[in-house]
């Protein structure tokens, strides 16, 4: 797709007539920008904002889109991923949206992007200081599963009254011998607020800690924006005797042989045979370009050609 360009960046298109740069009107952008500045000043705190109705459905990333639209400028290069992949349908759709309404350049290359909008993953390639990671968030409130009421969870955050969360986690340890959360694993930001990292696998949680990039979170339907400034301490909740751990696989990526990346399990035939491949498509491709090979580099070729 974009691989032909030496920088692997697709050129900008003209913006769509009749709409403002970035789709949102200026007043809306200002409102979101003010919320973003406060979010950065109060790491992990969920700032309420007047989320607008977007031309994409709630649940499809309206919060992330509004944040990106308020931040993005003509100098930016945008990457959009869903489940770690640039070519998932929703990622393609959102990238196309910004190409249309902001005319910005897009890329699939993590290192070439200045803004990366993501759903459910943090890229494997370490981020840099000049980058902003925008997360799409479905349920921003980490305490929601314990307490459905907004009035009550707001009070709990205000008083840093997080005992109920600790008890809940400990109940899981008692019942399952571990904290039974695979994704959306709660974190504590800068020693104060408990925060939902969005439904990323807990594998990605350590990447939030002391990241050189700015991390912004947008929840459109729930009307909340929050942030983690660069180089900020982010700790996954755990207990001394039950320390936080991440997912591990016995397998390496079948395509590139990586043993340090989050692997997707792909069922390849009717008998349920499966291969494991990197969820981060750019990372995997990059490794293959460097000459790394997994046990079955063509494992997906047959399935891929038969699809779409």
């Amino acid at each position: 797709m974009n691989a032909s360009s030496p920088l692997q960046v697709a050129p900008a298109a003209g913006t769509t007539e009749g709409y403002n740069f970035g789709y949102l009107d200026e007043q809306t952008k200002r409102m979101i920008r003010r919320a973003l500045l406060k979010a950065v000043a109060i790491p992990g705190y969920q700032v309420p904002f007047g989320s607008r109705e977007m031309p994409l459905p709630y649940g499809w990333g309206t919060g992330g889109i509004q944040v990106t639209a308020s931040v993005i400028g003509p100098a930016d290069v945008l990457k959009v991923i869903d489940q770690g992949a640039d070519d998932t349908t929703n990622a393609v759709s959102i990238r196309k949206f910004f190409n249309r309404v902001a005319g910005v350049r897009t890329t699939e290359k993590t290192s070439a992007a200045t803004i990366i909008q993501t759903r459910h993953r943090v890229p494997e390639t370490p981020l840099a200081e000049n980058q902003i990671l925008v997360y799409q968030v479905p349920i921003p409130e980490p305490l929601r599963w314990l307490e459905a009421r907004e009035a009550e969870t707001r009070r709990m955050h205000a008083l840093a009254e997080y005992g109920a969360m600790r008890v809940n986690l400990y109940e899981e340890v008692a019942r399952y011998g571990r904290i039974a959360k695979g994704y959306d694993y709660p974190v504590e930001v800068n020693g104060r607020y408990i925060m939902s990292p969005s439904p990323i696998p807990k594998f990605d949680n350590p990447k939030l800690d002391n990241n050189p990039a700015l991390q912004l979170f947008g929840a459109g339907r729930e009307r909340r924006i929050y942030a983690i400034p660069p180089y900020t301490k982010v700790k996954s909740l755990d207990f001394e005797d039950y320390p936080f751990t991440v997912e591990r696989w016995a397998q390496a990526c079948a395509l590139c042989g990586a043993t340090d990346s989050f692997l997707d399990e792909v069922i390849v035939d009717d008998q349920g045979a499966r291969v494991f491949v990197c969820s981060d498509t750019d990372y995997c491709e990059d490794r293959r370009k460097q000459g790394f090979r997994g046990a079955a580099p063509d494992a997906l070729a047959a399935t891929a050609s038969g699809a779409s």
Partner: protein
Amino acid sequence: MYVAVKGGERAIENAHRMLAETRRGDPATPELATTQLVEQLTLAVDRVMGEGSLYDRDLAALAIKQSRGDLIEAAFLLRAYRTTLARFGAAEPVDTNAMRVVRRISSTFKDVPGGQVLGPTFDYTHRLLDFSLAAAGTRPEAPVSTTPLAGKLPRIGELLEREGLIEPVVPDAGDAPVGDLTRESIDFPADRDVRLQNLARGDEGFLLALGYSTQRGYGRNHPFCGELRVGRVALEYVPEELGFAIELGDVDLTECQMINQFKGSAEQPPQFTRGYGLVFGHAERKAMAMALVDRALRAQELGETVVAPAQDQEFVLYHSDSVQATGFVEHLKLPHYVDFQSELVLVRGMRVECGQVQAEAAE
């Protein structure tokens, strides 16, 4: 596999073309004109205007056509368009006393000043399929009344108010700003202006079920339909530079005033209370359900214990919106395979441990 393949963009493009073709149906059948929808599917158009929160019959009809008759999708199309429109300001409050009614009934009195006006209603039709409608060319006509309706019809509530039997309607002092949940997030407890706005935009089915639940005892408040009126009112606006009101046009509205029981307290003599519903177009079911839920949501203000879903502000206001609800329910169609993979790893790990424990126990 719909992921690892390139060409997602082409697949999406093709899906859109297939959607367009399916929408049109058999080209041998004449294409629907949006004017036909405006004229003949008026209640669908009204519902889309209400939940789409935009009063424009032509756009609502277009949205219905574009959405293949999926009214929630149509409301979503209108909402997404509405959000890009510039705002000039807020209209003056509409005077529904001056409504030119096509229908006005009260169930609390046999007759009321101005009379019971049945208008176009399904209420007393026998629900028998009218096979003559299957053939084109019908031109039904209604007889024209010889006695004109009164210009201003007093509301039933006002008649009770004179006796002090019902809580008075007290307008806000001065020009208190009206909340707008499309511009800011809701704080709880939410004021009644924001609650009513939320309900007016809310999903008809959701409000219907909640209103019904109050009748069955989940937050019972003994409702009577004090009045239901449907008709046309003038919309006025005061431009900053003029300083006086000018008429922008007319809108069709349905208004429902429920009269509900209230026992009173040591400080307050017994008085009826009110629930209020106001919706775009002709939408009786929605206006009535809204009035029931509005009354239920006043529980706290009226010193009632909040025990039922319809009385719970957060529950009602956070779940009433059809566009939000459909988005979040339907987003489960998006790929979640990364989250699912972490769950797989977790469950497999736990099963292995569990097996070890059982094996040890067996030894």
